[in-house]
C-alpha cells in the first residue's frame, strides 16, 4: 500500500473529487427510501403540493446521483490509469537500471508478468478503492443510523444480520479461494497440454497418437469441469442463503412490530416498517459488495507487493561516474574468482591471463567449463567475488559505463533481435551509423547477401520474436550489430553456431582484414572456429587448463587434444 502514497499525493485532487462525489452519491442513495415514503404519505394525505415538491426533490436526487456517479467514474478512472501508467513507467525505468544479476534473480519472464498483469491489478485496485471503499462505509453507517431512527426497538436485528452475513462470507470465501487456486492450476495444465500438442504436432501425427492425446486432454478437461461444477454449487448455495437471511429478517421485523403494537398501538412505527426493511436490505447489499471488494482488493495488494519488490531492488553493480575515455583492446584477469548469485559453487576459480590489444583469442572447453561466464566479466555484466579485471589498462571498477560499452561488444549465442527494421537493430551497436557503416558491417558478417535481396534492404521489418528470420540470419545480423561500432574488443560467444562452415570462414576472414586493431575473442565448440587464433585458452571446470597456439596445444593440452580428435576428419571409414 505504501507505494501508492506518492501517487495519492501527486493526484490528490482526483482522489478528493472522486471521494466527495462517491460519498454524496451514497448519501443520495440513502435519502431515496425516505423520500419515497414521504411521497406516499403525502399522496395518502392528498397533499398535492407536497407530492409535487417531493417529486421535484426526487428529480433532483436522480440528476444529482447521476452527475455524481459520472463525476466519480471520471475522476476514479483518471486516477487509476494515472497510477497504473506511473507505476508502470517507474517500474520499467527501475528495470532498465538493473544488472544481469538483478534480472536473473527475478527472471525476465517474471518481470514481464509484474509489468503487465500486476500493474493491471493495481489499476483495478485503485478504481475499486475510489468507487467502492468510500461508498460502502457511507451506506453502512447511514443505513444503520436511518434504520435505527425508523424503528429503534429493532436495533438488534441489524446486529444479527451483520453476524449472519459475516459468518457466511467467512465460511464461503476461503472455500472459493481454495477452488479458484485449484482452477488456476487446471487452466495451466490445459494450456500446457494444448501448447505441447501444437508444438509437437508433427510428432503426434507421425506417431499416430491423436487419440491418446485426446484422451489425456479430455481427462484434464473433465477434472476441470468437475471443479467448475463445484464452484457453481457454492454460488448456488450462497445466493439463496443471502436472500434467506435478508428476507427472513424482513419478515421477522414485521412480525416483531406486530407483536410490539399488538397491545400498544403505534401507527408511526408501522408506517416506518417499509423504510426500515429497505435500509435492512441496503445494509445487506453493502456488506456483500464490501466482502467481494475486499477479496478483489486483496488480490491487488498481492500485486502491489510484487511490484514493490521490484522497486525496492537495488542495483548492486554501479559504474563510477568518471569522465569518458577511450579504452584499448587489452584485457587482464588477475586471480579472478566468480560465482553466480544463484549458485553455490564458483564458476570461475583463480583465473589469471592477459590479452594484448589486437590479439585474436579462442576459448574452448566442455559445456559448463566457464567459457561464457568468463566472457561476461569483460563487459562487466557481473562483478567477480575476488580478483580484478582490467580492460584497456583500467580496472573495471573505475571505468565509466558508456566508455566500456563502446569499447567492448559481446555477441551472444542466442541472437536476440528487436522488432523494428534491420537498420534499427544494427544501430543499437552504433546509434549514428550511416548506410555505409551498415553495409560495411553486414558485409563482414555475411549478412548483406540476404539483406540486399529484400526490396527494402536495411529497412526490412524484423517481426516480433524475429519470426521472419532463420537462426543463421539472426546470428549474422547480431554479429554485424556487434562489430559495426568498431569496438576495441569483440567477443563472439558461440555466435556462429548456426552458420555453415563456409560463411563462418568468410566472417573470420572479414574480421581479420577489416578490424585489424580489434581484439577478437571467439568462444566456440568447434576447433575450426578458433584454429587460426593467435592464442587459444582451454578451459576446464572453471579454471584455465592451458593457453597456446593450436600447434602448441596439440602437444601440451590433453583436453584440447581430446576435443580435436572428435572433430577431425575421419580418413577412410
Amino acid at each position, binding site marked *: 500500500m505504501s507505494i501508492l502514497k506518492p501517487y495519492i499525493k501527486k493526484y490528490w485532487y482526483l482522489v478528493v473529487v472522486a471521494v466527495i462525489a462517491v460519498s454524496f452519491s451514497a448519501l443520495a442513495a440513502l435519502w431515496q427510501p425516505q423520500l419515497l415514503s414521504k*411521497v406516499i404519505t403525502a399522496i395518502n394525505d392528498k397533499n398535492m403540493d407536497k407530492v409535487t415538491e417531493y417529486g421535484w426533490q426526487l428529480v433532483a436526487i436522480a440528476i444529482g446521483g447521476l452527475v455524481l456517479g459520472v463525476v466519480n467514474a471520471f475522476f476514479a478512472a483518471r486516477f487509476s490509469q494515472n497510477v497504473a501508467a506511473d507505476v508502470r513507467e517507474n517500474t520499467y525505468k527501475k528495470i532498465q537500471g538493473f544488472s544481469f544479476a538483478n534480472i536473473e534473480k527475478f527472471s525476465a519472464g517474471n518481470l514481464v508478468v509484474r509489468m503487465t498483469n500486476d500493474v493491471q491489478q493495481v489499476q483495478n485496485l485503485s478504481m475499486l478503492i475510489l468507487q467502492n471503499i468510500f461508498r460502502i462505509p457511507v451506506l453502512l453507517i447511514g443505513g444503520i443510523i436511518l434504520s435505527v431512527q425508523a424503528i429503534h426497538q429493532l436495533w438488534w436485528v441489524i446486529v444479527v444480520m451483520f453476524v449472519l452475513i459475516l459468518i457466511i462470507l467467512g465460511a464461503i470465501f476461503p472455500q472459493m479461494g481454495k477452488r479458484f487456486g485449484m482452477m488456476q492450476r487446471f487452466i495451466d495444465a490445459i494450456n500446457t497440454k494444448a501448447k505441447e500438442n501444437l508444438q509437437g504436432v508433427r*510428432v503426434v501425427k507421425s506417431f499416430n497418437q491423436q487419440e491418446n492425446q485426446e484422451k489425456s486432454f479430455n481427462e484434464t478437461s473433465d477434472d476441470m469441469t468437475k471443479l467448475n461444477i463445484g464452484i457453481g454449487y457454492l454460488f448456488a448455495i450462497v445466493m439463496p442463503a443471502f436472500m*434467506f437471511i435478508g*428476507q427472513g429478517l424482513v419478515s421477522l421485523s414485521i412480525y416483531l412490530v406486530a407483536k410490539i403494537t399488538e397491545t400498544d398501538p403505534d401507527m408511526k412505527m408501522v408506517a416506518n416498517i417499509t423504510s426500515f426493511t429497505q435500509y435492512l436490505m441496503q445494509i445487506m447489499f453493502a456488506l456483500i459488495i464490501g466482502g467481494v471488494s475486499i477479496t478483489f482488493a486483496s488480490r491487488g495488494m498481492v500485486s502491489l507487493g510484487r511490484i514493490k519488490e521490484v522497486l525496492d531492488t537495488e542495483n548492486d553493480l554501479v559504474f563510477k561516474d568518471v569522465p569518458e575515455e577511450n579504452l584499448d583492446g587489452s584485457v587482464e584477469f588477475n586471480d579472478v574468482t566468480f560465482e553466480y548469485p544463484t549458485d553455490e559453487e564458483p564458476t570461475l576459480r583463480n583465473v589469471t591471463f592477459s590479452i594484448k590489444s589486437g590479439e585474436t583469442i579462442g576459448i574452448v572447453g566442455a559445456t559448463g567449463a566457464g567459457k561464457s561466464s568468463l566472457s561476461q566479466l569483460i563487459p562487466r555484466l557481473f562483478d567477480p567475488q575476488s580478483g580484478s579485471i582490467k580492460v584497456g589498462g583500467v580496472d573495471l571498477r573505475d571505468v565509466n559505463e558508456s566508455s566500456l560499452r563502446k569499447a567492448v561488444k559481446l555477441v551472444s549465442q542466442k541472437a*536476440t533481435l528487436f522488432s523494428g527494421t534491420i537498420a534499427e537493430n544494427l544501430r543499437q551497436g552504433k546509434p549514428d551509423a550511416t548506410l555505409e557503416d551498415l553495409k560495411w558491417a553486414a558485409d563482414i558478417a555475411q549478412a548483406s547477401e540476404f539483406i540486399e535481396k529484400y526490396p527494402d534492404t536495411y529497412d526490412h521489418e524484423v517481426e516480433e520474436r524475429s519470426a521472419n528470420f532463420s537462426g543463421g540470419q539472426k546470428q549474422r545480423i547480431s554479429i554485424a550489430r556487434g562489430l559495426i561500432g568498431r569496438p576495441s574488443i569483440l567477443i563472439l560467444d558461440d555466435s556462429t553456431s548456426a552458420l*555453415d562452415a563456409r560463411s563462418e*570462414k568468410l566472417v573470420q576472414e572479414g574480421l581479420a582484414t577489416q578490424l585489424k586493431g580489434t581484439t577478437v575473442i571467439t568462444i566456440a565448440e568447434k576447433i575450426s572456429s578458433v584454429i587460426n587464433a593467435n592464442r587459444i585458452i582451454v578451459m576446464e571446470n572453471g579454471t584455465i587448463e592451458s593457453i597456446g597456439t593450436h600447434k602448441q596445444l596439440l602437444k601440451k593440452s590433453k583436453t584440447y587434444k581430446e576435443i580435436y580428435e572428435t572433430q577431425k576428419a575421419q580418413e577412410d571409414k
Partner: protein
Amino acid sequence: MKSFNKSVKFFAHYLGRYWFALIVILVLTIAQTYMQVHAPVYMGNAINDLIYHNTAGEITKHLTVTLPTGGTMKLTFAQAVEAAVQNNTLTKSIAKVVLDNQTLSTFYKDILAFVGFLGAMMVIQFINAIIQAIVAPKSVNNMRKGLFAKMQRMTVKYFDSHQDGDILARFTSDLDNIFNAMNQAIFQAFAQVVLIIGIIWQMFNESSKMAWVTIASTPVAIVIAVLIMRLSSKYINAQQSEVGELNGYINEQINGEKILITYGQQAKSVDGFEPLNKKVRQSTFKGQFWSSVLFPIMQGMSLVNTAIVIFYGAWAVLNNSVDGITIGLIVTFMSFSIQYYQPITQITSTYNQMQLAFTGAARINEIHDQADEVSPKDGKIINGVEASVELKDVHFGYNEDKEILHGINATVEKGHMVALVGPTGSGKTTVMNLLNRFYDVNSGSVEFDGVDVRDIDLVNLRNNVGIVLQDSVLFSGTVRDNIAFGKPDATDEEVIAAAKQANIHEVIENLPDRYDTKVSDENSVFSTGQKQLLSIARTILTDPQLLILDEATSNVDTVTEARIQKAMDNVLHGRTSFVIAHRLKTILGADKIIVLKDGEIIEQGTHAQLMKKKNGFYRELYTNQTVFE
C-alpha cells in the same frame, strides 16, 4: 451477421444436447420471476393488516367517550368504528377491514403466506442455480474437448501458417469468455427478459394508462444504454490493442534486457516505452470511464422515471381527469417503475460480455471450418518398404506462388541410407515434410514401392515412417511416457532397450526417479542433445520401416554429438533411411549423398565419389568443416 449466425449455430450445437435441462431452467426461471414480482404483494398485505390492526387498536383506546351531558359512555368496538365512519375519519371500505383486523389472526395468515412464498422461491432459485451450475461447465467442457479433437485432425499446414499463440487463445480467452457469459450473462439475460415481460404484463393488468406512462421512457433509456455500451466496447477494444502493443514491447524489451544492457540501450528502451505508455494512459481512461458510467446513468433514469409516474399520477388525481387512477395505484406504480428499470440496466450491462462470448464462439467456429487431413478412401496398406522409396520429379512450395523444390528425383533402395546435405534454405527439411504427407506435392509424386503416398492409408503410412525432428519435443509426463509415446502399451523392457540403443539409458538411470522422473518441454531435466537422444529412443521403440532423421547437432557439445552419432548408427542399421545432415562427419557411411541447393539437386554420389570432384560443392563443404590446416 454471418458470424452472428455462426455463433448461434455454435451455441445451438453445444447446448442442444441439454435441451431438457434448458427447458427446466426456462420453467424455473419463469416461476422464480413470477414469485419475485409477487412476493412484495404478500408483504404489502401483511403490512396493511398491521396498519388496520393498529387503527383498530387506536379505536379500542377510545371506547370510552365523554357525553355532552358530562357522563361517560362505553361503546362496543363495532359502535366505535361506526362512529368513526360517521365522523368521516374512516371510509366505509376501510372500516370493514379494520373490523376484520381486530385480532392479529389475518396478519399471521398473510405473514405466513409471505414466508412460505419466500421459502418456495428460494428453493426454486437454488434448484435453478444447481442445474445451471451443471449445464454451463459441461457444455463448455464439450466445446473445449471438441476444439482439441478438431486440432488433432487438422493439417500441418494450418499449424505452420498460424501462430501458436492465436490458436491457444481459443483455449484460454475465448472459451473463458464463453464460460463467463454463460455463468453471468446468458441465463441472467433470459431471466431479466422474463422479468420485464412479467412486470409489463402486471402493469397493464393494473392500469394501461399508468403502464404506458411508466414504459414511455424505455426507448430513450435503451438508446442511451446502447450508446454507452457501444462507446465503452469501442474504447475497450482500442484499449486492448494499445495495451497489447505496450505489453508486446515490454515483453520483447525485458526478454532482451541482457542485450540492452550489453549494448547500453537502456535509455533508448525507456524512450521507446514512454510514448506507448502515454497512449495507454489515454485509452484506458476512456475505456474505464465509459464502462463505469452505465450504472449511475441508468440509476438516475430510473428515478426520473419514477418522478414522472408520480407527477402524472398526482396530476390525474388532482384534476380527476383520468378515470380509475387512485392514490393506491400511484404507490403501486412507483415500485413498478423502480423494478422495471433494474432488468433493463442488468441486460445492458452484460452486453459486452455477451459480445465477447459471441466473438469467441465465432473464432472457435473458424477452427472448426478448417479442412481435415484426408486419408484416401480404401487406402492401400503397405507393410514396410519392399524395394524402394522414390521421389519422382517433385515440385513443391508452401505457397502457391513460391516454389521451393524444383523437380527432385531421388530413390532410396530398401535398407539403404540416403543423406541430404546442403546450405540452409536449400529444401532439405521440405523433402521430409512430403514423405509422410505433412504436405502434398504440387506435381510429381512420392512413391513407396511404386504406390503414391496419396493412395496409402494415412495411419498405415505414418506407422511405417518414423521421424526424428531437429527440434525435439517433450510432452509433460514421465520419461517413460515420452519414450513410449508412439506405443503406450510398451513393456518396461522394451522402453529400456530402446533407451539403451539410443544411448540415453545411463543418463535416465542417474535421474532421481529414473524412468518415472517428470519432465516437460520447459523444465530443464535434459539438455538439447539429451532431448534428441530421447526422441531417437521414442522412434526406435515404434520400429518404423522408413526412417527420417533431421539431425540437430548445432547446439550440442562434441561429447554429446558423439553419443548421438552412435545412437543414430544403432537405429539406422538395417533400415531404409533419409538423413538430413548438418555436420557432414555423421553421414560419411551413407549409401548415397544428395546435395541440394536452392531446391535442386546439384550433386549426388557416395562420400568418396563426391570428394573426388575438384571444385565440387560437397568437397568444399566437407573441407571447411573438418580439415584444420
